[in-house]
């Protein structure tokens, strides 16, 4: 079994430990004897998907976001097509915002998104920073560290990743955090997100592996350290 992690813009969108997500996907695959190839794709690189791929894109500074927005729009048709046919993907913070309709910056510049998620994001003058705890129906308790000024409001029929127990989430009002659509997870949680939330990591790996072998079953791992770290982080301010 061999899967591939397609890492979009690792040079421009790589803030706050997002690389930990790649490390978690790779290690938890390898511990189950699944081979992993990491494919880095930046601006002007050709993007293609094949069976057994996982897409990852991390957060960036506002400047990084501007640079990638126009390139991402060129790649959007390929991404959309893959997502419709079940591509597992994780997009964090700046990438999450760009998967929506647009991001309106503090200087009132409208950065166009690629319209996969049905939402818009508007910069606010409040920076939402801190440990965040989210209760997700699908994954249980999720933990991360958020740091954003963009306020995201989901459309009514969209499915959030979970309810905010502690912290801000998508915005400082409705207590929802992140979004799920097909096998795509979008979230504001850095932290790094996947190491302390192994159920999400395994969800992505399983989806990719099942594309190659529909009967594939993930072996269980000892997650006691992951769970301890998750529990402990939830108690921090």
């Amino acid at each position: 079994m061999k899967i591939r992690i397609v890492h979009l813009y690792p040079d421009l969108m790589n803030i706050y430990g997002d690389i930990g997500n790649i490390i978690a996907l790779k290690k938890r695959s390898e511990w189950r004897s699944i081979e992993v190839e990491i494919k880095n794709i930046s601006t002007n690189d050709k993007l293609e998907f094949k069976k057994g791929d996982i897409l990852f894109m991390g957060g960036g500074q506002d400047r990084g976001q501007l640079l990638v927005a126009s390139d991402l729009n060129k790649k959007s048709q390929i991404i959309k097509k893959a997502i419709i046919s079940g591509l597992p993907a994780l997009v964090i913070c700046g990438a999450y915002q760009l998967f929506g309709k647009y991001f309106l910056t503090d200087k009132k510049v409208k950065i166009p998104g690629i319209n996969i998620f049905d939402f818009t994001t508007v910069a606010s003058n409040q920076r939402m920073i801190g440990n965040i705890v989210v209760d997700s129906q699908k994954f249980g308790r999720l933990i991360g560290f958020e740091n954003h000024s963009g306020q995201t409001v989901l459309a009514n029929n969209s499915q959030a990743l979970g309810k905010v127990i502690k912290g801000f989430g998508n915005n400082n009002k409705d207590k929802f955090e992140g979004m799920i659509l097909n096998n795509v997870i979008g979230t504001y949680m850095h932290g790094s997100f996947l190491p302390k939330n192994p159920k999400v990591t395994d969800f992505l790996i399983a989806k990719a592996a099942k594309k190659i072998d529909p009967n594939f079953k993930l072996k269980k791992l000892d997650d006691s350290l992951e769970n301890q770290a998750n529990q402990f982080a939830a108690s921090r301010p």
Partner: protein
Amino acid sequence: MLFISLILGKITLFFNRLTGSGGSAMPGLAVEKINSNFIEFLAVKNFPKGVILITGTNGKTTTSKMIAGILDKAGISYLHNRAGSNLPRGIASAMIGASSILGKIKADIGLFEVDEAAIPKLTLMLQPKIILVTNLFRDQLDRYGELDKTARLFKQAFEQSNAAICLNSDDPLVAGLSLGLSKKHISFYGVSDYPDQLLDDLHSIDVTTSPVSSSKLVYSKRYFGHVGIYETENQDFKRPKPDVELVKLKKSDINRSEFIIKINETLEKINLPLAGLYNIYNSLAATAVASKLGIRGKIIIDTLNHISPAFGRMEIIKYYDRNLYLLLIKNPTGLNQIIQTFLLKKPNTPVLIIINDNIADGRDVSWLWDSAVEAISKNKGPMLVSGIRAYDMGLRLKYAGVKNFLIEPDINLALRKIVEITPKNKPAFILPTYTAMLNIRAKIVKKSEAKEFWK
């Protein structure tokens, strides 16, 4: 009003010392609450040779210590916020402590280490003569927002100041601060001869594009993070030629570095008794500042050749006959440098990593994932993790492929354990975050002769 502020500050300072708390920002905080013009007033009235501000992510404390040593040797008196309390209130505290009740400070120079976030405000308030920026990395971003924003705020402050600006030419974000400023105000320092250090992977690089455009940076040499010799793809920006330049590296090991520098076309040899490239950068930074003050090369070199480490930064403290190396870590680049300089050079040495997430450490511990911890997965020495976020560090080690590490969140027990597993007269490396360093250092110095740091 000013008089009352000063008295109040001095009383707070006295009680702090009396209770042994050493809280070095409290007196300043008390006064700040009453009178916000206070720092400005004291600074303008004093320091006939001007104020020097030292800022940047890494190297502030060590560089300040080096400059202080040079000033000592040159016979120039100075006031320094030596407690590492680098917010405006910490600087106010230093001034209050040194001031007579009439507001007179006996010092030629104010030498202040300043937190990045405080630079815009303090540049306006203190009207410094020299500002030094060492480097800009991801550090406690949960407090500052983003790196680009920090650089933007610096630039705005510099444009309104007449200060001479000393900049690291090898950090493109820092060197980019010179754009638009008058050339005669700027001096650069940099390293032109050092081996590439390939420990840093893509993920610890914070800056990848030109300070003026979206053109990507191309490196002919990369030392660590985004620091190296670079130009942009479309040639709109390149590493400026350093005025203080390391032209030849002769030797470097876990105790010292020997190298040749060029200052204003003169070659000088430095035999620096501190390890690591980051200390080389600190010594060049100190040299650049001292040269701006017109201090002779010989005085600078003599000082650097006999410098001792700053508080908690590569201090070696004897404790129950073990040589404990205190190696402060704050961010991925700093941790990578410690790994490179110590952990990889002595792979059988016991290691204790202590991660706290108090405000002074940064609440966000995600930086642990940005550092090249994988590099130590083959080390044979015993490894312990401790501190408030011991489990996060443990998780990082697990995913880096490190085997057989122990998690002991209690710092007291972890210290006892590291002593047990370290043979007598042998070294152990202790890597604490800031508040963890204060904590463990206090425990260690009780047993040894190292001075309490506010004295």
